């Protein structure tokens, strides 16, 4: 997901305050910034929300790659608006994380130095225009699957940010599917482009939900705190069940020979995921890890003079105001 394998810290026995805190969560009472919270809850949420924010910011890059080449003015306008939305999501999420006592500069520094992670999915390249459609349809589709429950998560600022984010993500997914539909109704070359994009994005999209439940060591704590409402495998299954009929409607083939409807379970069975690939990408060895971080670092370094100047100007203005008042 946009936040994957979030470390919840080492558990210890709960003292009375923690027990009361857990009771409030169990009773469905939202935690707000001024409320007491266990240090582990606070740190875990900082990791989760900042990872989500970083994913939005780095996530601008693969799709931004096609803005200058969008094949119609309408598609260009949609893509510009969408990538701008991602920046906006990053901004709400950084703000939500700041309520937990960390600054945006600290978080950005953690991203740029590789201490903080972002979603594995954004380390894959966008090779053709169809990839823009596949990202909207599959990646944003997977994001919504995870984020709609988060609108009900225990931390107030995060839950409220998610409500707005989800509304925009729903639009993003629809535009992605609409783009794929145009390609699938188009020329044979366009349809082949769509199939190729599905082939490349299918498995990485399923990996987005994170490791299988058996290997997901932090899930139980996150679920108890209600900052994770479904398990990785539950969400992954939902994604497969939702997406397979959509692919059929497009006339595309999901690249999984083991995929079949299981009437007994009422779900699709699907093939094994290459977790070695996932862990490799998470460790920094994906196709675009270096490039993405390089671009972010360059933008930040190139923009330093700009940010410094705005601060310097504001200081000068403040001094002038003081001098004038004196």
């Amino acid at each position, binding site marked *: 997901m946009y936040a994957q394998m979030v470390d919840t810290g080492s558990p210890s026995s709960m003292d009375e305050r923690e027990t009361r805190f857990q009771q409030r969560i169990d009773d469905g009472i939202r935690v707000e910034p001024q409320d007491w919270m266990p240090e582990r809850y606070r740190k875990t949420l900082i990791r989760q929300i900042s990872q989500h924010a970083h994913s939005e*910011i780095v996530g*601008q*890059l693969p799709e*931004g790659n096609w*803005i*200058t*080449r*969008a*094949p*119609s*003015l*309408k*598609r*260009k*306008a949609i893509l*510009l*608006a969408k*990538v*701008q939305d991602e*920046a*906006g999501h*990053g*901004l709400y999420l*950084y703000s939500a994380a700041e309520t937990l006592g960390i600054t945006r500069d600290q978080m950005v520094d953690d991203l740029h130095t590789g201490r903080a992670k972002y979603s594995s999915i954004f380390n894959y390249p966008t090779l053709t*225009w169809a990839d823009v459609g596949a990202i909207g349809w599959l990646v944003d589709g997977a994001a919504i699957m995870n984020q709609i429950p988060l609108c009900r998560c225990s931390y107030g600022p995060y839950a409220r940010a998610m409500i707005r984010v989800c509304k925009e993500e729903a639009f993003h997914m629809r535009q992605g599917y609409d*783009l794929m539909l*145009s*390609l699938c109704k*188009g*020329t044979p*070359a*366009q349809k082949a482009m769509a199939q190729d994009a599905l082939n490349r994005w299918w498995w990485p999209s399923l990996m987005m939900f994170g490791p299988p439940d058996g290997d997901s060591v932090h899930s139980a704590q996150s679920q108890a705190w209600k900052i994770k409402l479904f398990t990785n495998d539950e969400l992954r299954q939902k994604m497969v069940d939702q997406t397979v009929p959509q692919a059929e409607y497009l006339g595309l083939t999901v690249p999984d020979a083991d995929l079949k409807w299981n009437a007994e379970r009422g779900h699709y069975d699907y093939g094994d995921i290459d977790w070695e690939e996932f862990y490799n990408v998470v460790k920094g060895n994906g196709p675009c890890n270096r490039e993405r971080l390089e*671009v972010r670092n*360059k*933008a930040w370094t*190139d*923009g*330093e*003079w*700009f*940010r*410094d*100047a*705005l601060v*310097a*100007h*504001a200081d*000068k203005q403040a001094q002038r105001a003081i001098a004038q008042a004196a």
Partner: protein
Amino acid sequence: MSSARYEYLLRLGDNALILSQRLGEWCGKGPALEEDMALTNNALDLLGQARLWLSLAAEEAGDGADEDTLAYLRDDREFRNVLLVEQPNGSYADTLARQFLFDAWSSLVLRRLLASSDPAIAAIAEKAVKEVSYHLRRSSDLVVRLGDGTALSHAMLQGAIDKVWPYHHELFIGDAIDAEMVASGIGFDPEHLKDEWLAYVREVLNEATLKVPAAGGWMPKGGKQGLHSEHLSKLLAEMQTLQRSHPGASW
């Protein structure tokens, strides 16, 4: 097809389209998150304006053209934008200097067009002038803050203004198309905008502690007539690639 009105609409549409294309190159790479969003907004506004102007031009052409055939299937010699907007982004200071000079001019253009005898043109101007007034407020404000910021930002902004300055001359040179537009009451004489433009630019640069470059010197021109710098054909090669490599496909 090549009526003066058609040419005039292409000029308006191409300015917005090409500048929007340049600004789109920054998306995701701005110097601050808020700046990234604001500049993308600017790009979106200009793209929206380009679509309105080009759709109207396509209607005037009446040969089955639409906004996309005009944007994607013309060659560089058929583009009618001024040279200023096709100049490469350079540093953020360069982008900002280009934007400021353009916004100051474009807001005057659009205000003149509010009084156009052509109702379709006046209607687009009415929508666009609100957006461009905001763009101008934003770019002027940033020029002041960066000009009067640090020694480095001051030097960068001054260098950027000096570099882009020669391209302003073309904005105020009229030709036969402009004359025809003046005669029919559709347009205005571009020379008449110069004093007001210069007064505004001077005021902002003064506040920014920046120098107005000396008059005279190199005065490149020709964009309005389709004679561009080397940069435009490369910009178009990138922008038009899919439409050119998949002729007739819909997207």
